[in-house]
């Protein structure tokens, strides 16, 4: 099924490949419900995380996924390593490869770094978030979560609200959802809308009430708080007023709509606490599904390497 040794993004995956990952992840979900949550497929394999941006949840989720598959997991700590001494990313990657790693999980603030590394190393490169480009495993865990609540992706209405221009989560979700036949609406102030985003096959809204109407899925994104100081927004208060997900707005969506957030949340900025903790929220389920999806990705790429 899989031909690439790497997972660089959703953009280049076929709908069949996406479905295959989701099916595999569903099986691992069952494993995670067992008393003993460990299976042996990656025994003797080494997974190294190379994160150039702070991350707790993604890294922890990947670490658990690797360990559940019996792989050895090592974190290559950027802040205390040779990287701060000025080592180039090429040298860092080759060093990790020479240490014997089979997988490298890369997160970097610059888009395209996973693609760059994939051309240099033989290890499997897994994109754990690159700049404003992609965060494929986040989109996959979002899909797995949606799948357990909705019958099909075909015709599903998904509203993505937030900082679309700087969000790799939004990008990966747009690719994944449109490939599987969902209707995607993106909602944000014009200052946070990327150029020509409609050409990705999404509908563009500046009014949240219009954009959220009759949605099956409400996906709100984390707002980087420094956007305010860079002229994108007058104030966080105004952002919450215009784009925050509150109880009244959730009511505009379908009755059985689910509310998602990739975390970490800014309560009172992009989402009201009553919604985050409310009955329609599946936010913690997303976190759990993250492990299953990352197990599936490691497992499938491990299969390609054999």
């Amino acid at each position, binding site marked *: 099924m899989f031909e690439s040794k790497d997972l660089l993004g959703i953009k280049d995956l076929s709908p069949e490949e996406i479905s295959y990952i989701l099916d595999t992840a569903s099986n691992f979900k069952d494993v995670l419900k067992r008393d003993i949550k460990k299976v042996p497929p990656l025994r003797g394999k080494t997974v190294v995380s190379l994160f150039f941006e702070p991350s707790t949840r993604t890294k922890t989720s990947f670490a658990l996924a690797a360990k559940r598959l019996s792989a050895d997991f090592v974190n290559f700590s950027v802040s205390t390593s040779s990287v701060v001494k000025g080592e180039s990313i090429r040298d860092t990657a080759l060093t990790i490869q020479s240490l014997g790693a089979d997988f490298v999980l890369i997160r970097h603030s*610059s888009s395209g770094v996973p693609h760059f590394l994939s051309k240099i190393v033989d290890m499997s490169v897994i994109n754990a978030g690159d700049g404003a480009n992609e965060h494929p495993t986040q989109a996959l865990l979002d899909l797995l979560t949606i799948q357990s609540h909705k019958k099909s992706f075909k015709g599903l209405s998904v509203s993505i609200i937030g900082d679309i221009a700087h969000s*790799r989560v939004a990008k990966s979700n747009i690719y994944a959802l449109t490939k599987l036949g969902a209707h995607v609406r993106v909602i944000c102030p014009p200052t946070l809308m990327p*150029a*020509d985003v409609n050409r990705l096959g999404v509908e563009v809204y500046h009014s949240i009430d219009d954009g959220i109407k009759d949605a099956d899925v409400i996906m709100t994104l984390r707002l980087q708080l420094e956007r305010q100081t860079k002229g994108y927004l007058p104030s966080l208060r105004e952002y919450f007023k215009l784009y925050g997900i509150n109880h009244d707005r959730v009511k505009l969506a379908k009755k059985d709509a689910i509310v998602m957030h990739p975390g970490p949340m800014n309560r009172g900025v992009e989402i009201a606490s009553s919604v985050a903790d409310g009955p329609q929220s599946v936010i913690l389920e997303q976190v759990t599904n993250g492990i299953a999806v990352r197990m599936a990705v490691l497992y499938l790429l491990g299969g390609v390497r054999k």
Partner: protein
Amino acid sequence: MTVLIKNGRIIDPSQGIDGRKDLLIKSRKIEGIYAAGKAPKTDKIIDASGCIVIPGLVDMHTHLREPGFEYKETIYTGTMSAVKGGITTVCCMPNTSPINDSVSITQFILDKAAKEGACTVYPIGAITTGQKSEELTELEALLKAGCIAFSDDGMPVINSLIMRRALEYSKIFNVPIISHCEDMELSKGGVMNEGFVSTILGLKGIPKSAEEVMVARDISLCELTKGRLHIAHVSTKGSVNLIRDAKKRGVNVTAETCPHYFTLTDESLISYDTNLKVNPPIRTEQDVAAIKQGLKDNTIDVIATDHAPHHFDDKDREFDAAAFGISGFETAFALGLGLVDQGILDLTEFIRKFTITPSHILRIDKGSLSAGADADVAIINTETTYTVDSLNFISKGKNSPFHKWKLKGIVEKTIAMGKVYDWR
């Protein structure tokens, strides 16, 4: 020493010559052009059968990197690379280290060029001290030392008042102010053209407006001051339109573009190849079409390379952190010839924009085969196709997006100040 170049098709736009004639060189000067077979006997004969024989190209926008960045390029490697590309006059921008804002740096460049250079080098002095957009450099002293124009290239003159003063003050000497048009706030953090492709790649875009607002500003200041403005590396349709309108109004503005701006579109960046990272960025199909139209209707007067060589390590890294620039000397002529093949320019017009027109703008005695001119000649086979191998560039900068491209038009021989370089 006399050399006769015979059997070639001589094209010299400066004299309106295009035909099978023989060119006679006597030591470092052009002696004259003769009807085929009518030239006197010479010490040496060069057979230019199947080739065009043209004035050595004049490149008014280059970066030779010396002093300060000798690991990227030197005056020796840069001028050799230029000569390989048929270019025999290079004007080097002042963003070296230290910046060429003083007589001593200008003299250093000229001394080095005299000692090691393969062709004529004209330094372009900084407009402002340290390219800081605060105080004008000593224009008179720099001109006397050998500078021929002024530019803060790489940096715009962000202070509009200083730009006004530069355009006014330079009128004393009737030299052009070459403007790198970029609003640094609009372009901040940007690494490619802003548009659908930057959205797909998740890279920060540089909007076309970043260039166009400064083109509009500088045209307005030029109109106000009646100074001489030359717009460097035009990359957008909007800039072409602004310059066209200004010329119609009689504003004293000239403009240049570079081969990558009429050859490539931002679609080509899709693989994050840092060799395509350049400032201003490679734009869209509409911009390429407008630039071609601008070249055709003479809105854009000049083709220049903006040769910007970089070390491998400066490019072999994350896209955001990679250096801006393209190593352009050794592919420029062939890429320009593409315009001729597409019917945008005829051969004479193309050569004019790369020889006598920049010479006129800079008021230098270059770019012509007229009797008494410097013996700068390029002998080019315009029919031969070859595959570009940037690793074989003479330039230290192997950073070419045209690596592995099949191009037509190969420089067979270059004569720079009478010295013959045979490349075959």
